[in-house]
């Protein structure tokens, strides 16, 4: 499936590059308009070229449709963790676990921003990838191990599962105190005024 995705991306990139080149060639007047119209007249006037052009169009539509199905299907497929109770099945969306992580990390003051990505593997374990932006005063080894510990225990506590939980942390940015101050001031300054806010006041 991965190869098909790569082939699809290469195909679309090639088609778009080709369209771009045709537009550039057309704008630079490298090919005279008569040659283009001559090509169209030739295709229009002969049976086999018309068949080839028609089949190419059909192939393009089929490739586009299957590629769109593949991409949309992936986005639409909601990934879940499931377990069964005597009354029925309980499924938990992985996005719900991401919500949960976003809510409890606010207790760690050194974290400026966090983007979680939760994956359930076929072996049954849960992999949590955390992309974090930290404040500069943070002690990285201590903080990351604390974050891993908290995330793991909180997921186990809330979900009540015994599956292996792997927490991967990627520190994407460390923001200095000055940078934070500057951003805060910028956001204060950029506070939008209310349109017609003073209108009618005496």
């Amino acid at each position, binding site marked *: 499936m991965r190869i098909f995705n790569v082939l699809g991306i290469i195909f679309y990139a090639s088609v778009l590059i080709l369209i771009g080149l045709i537009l550039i060639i057309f704008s630079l007047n490298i090919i005279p308009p008569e040659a283009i119209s001559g090509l169209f007249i030739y295709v229009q006037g002969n049976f086999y070229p018309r068949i080839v052009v028609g089949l190419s169009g059909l192939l393009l539509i089929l490739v586009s449709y299957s590629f769109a199905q593949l991409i949309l299907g992936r986005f639409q497929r909601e990934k*879940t963790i499931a*377990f069964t*109770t005597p*009354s*029925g*099945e*309980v*499924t*938990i*969306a992985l*996005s*719900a*676990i991401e*919500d*949960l992580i976003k*809510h*409890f990390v606010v207790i760690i003051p050194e974290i400026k921003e966090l983007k979680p990505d939760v994956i359930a593997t076929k072996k049954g374990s849960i992999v949590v990838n955390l992309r974090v932006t930290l404040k500069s005063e943070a002690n990285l080894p201590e903080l990351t191990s604390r974050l891993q510990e908290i995330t793991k225990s909180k997921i186990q*506590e*809330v*979900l*009540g599962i015994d599956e292996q939980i792997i927490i991967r942390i990627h520190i994407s940015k460390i923001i200095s105190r000055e940078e934070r101050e500057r951003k805060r001031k910028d956001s204060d300054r950029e506070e939008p005024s209310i349109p017609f806010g003073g209108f009618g006041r005496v």
Partner: protein
Amino acid sequence: MNREEFHTDLGAIKIHKNVIASIASLAALEIEGIKGIGRDFKSGIMELLGRKDLSAIKVEFDKNQDVLIDIPLVIKYGYNIPDVASKVQDNVRNALEKMTSLSLKDINISVEGIEKN
């Protein structure tokens, strides 16, 4: 089929799927730790229009006329999900059996989100 039908000596009693969904929704919301019922595309649009829609709760009848219900839920942050889900299943089962005497097969819960108060 959109409704469950019983026959008495005096005639037929029909219970619409929406009634079952409505009872299930109310029973689920009674449980502490439930923030709300999840939404699908249709119920999201209806909510924007200011109308209550329970289409996110799926009610099906199988060949034996047993009821299968899928309930999407949003749970409050800080609650144990299996505990809350299990309580919802029990409460929905009790409420539906008490109010409709229907035979329930499965009450499936899907937790779609976690929100803070």
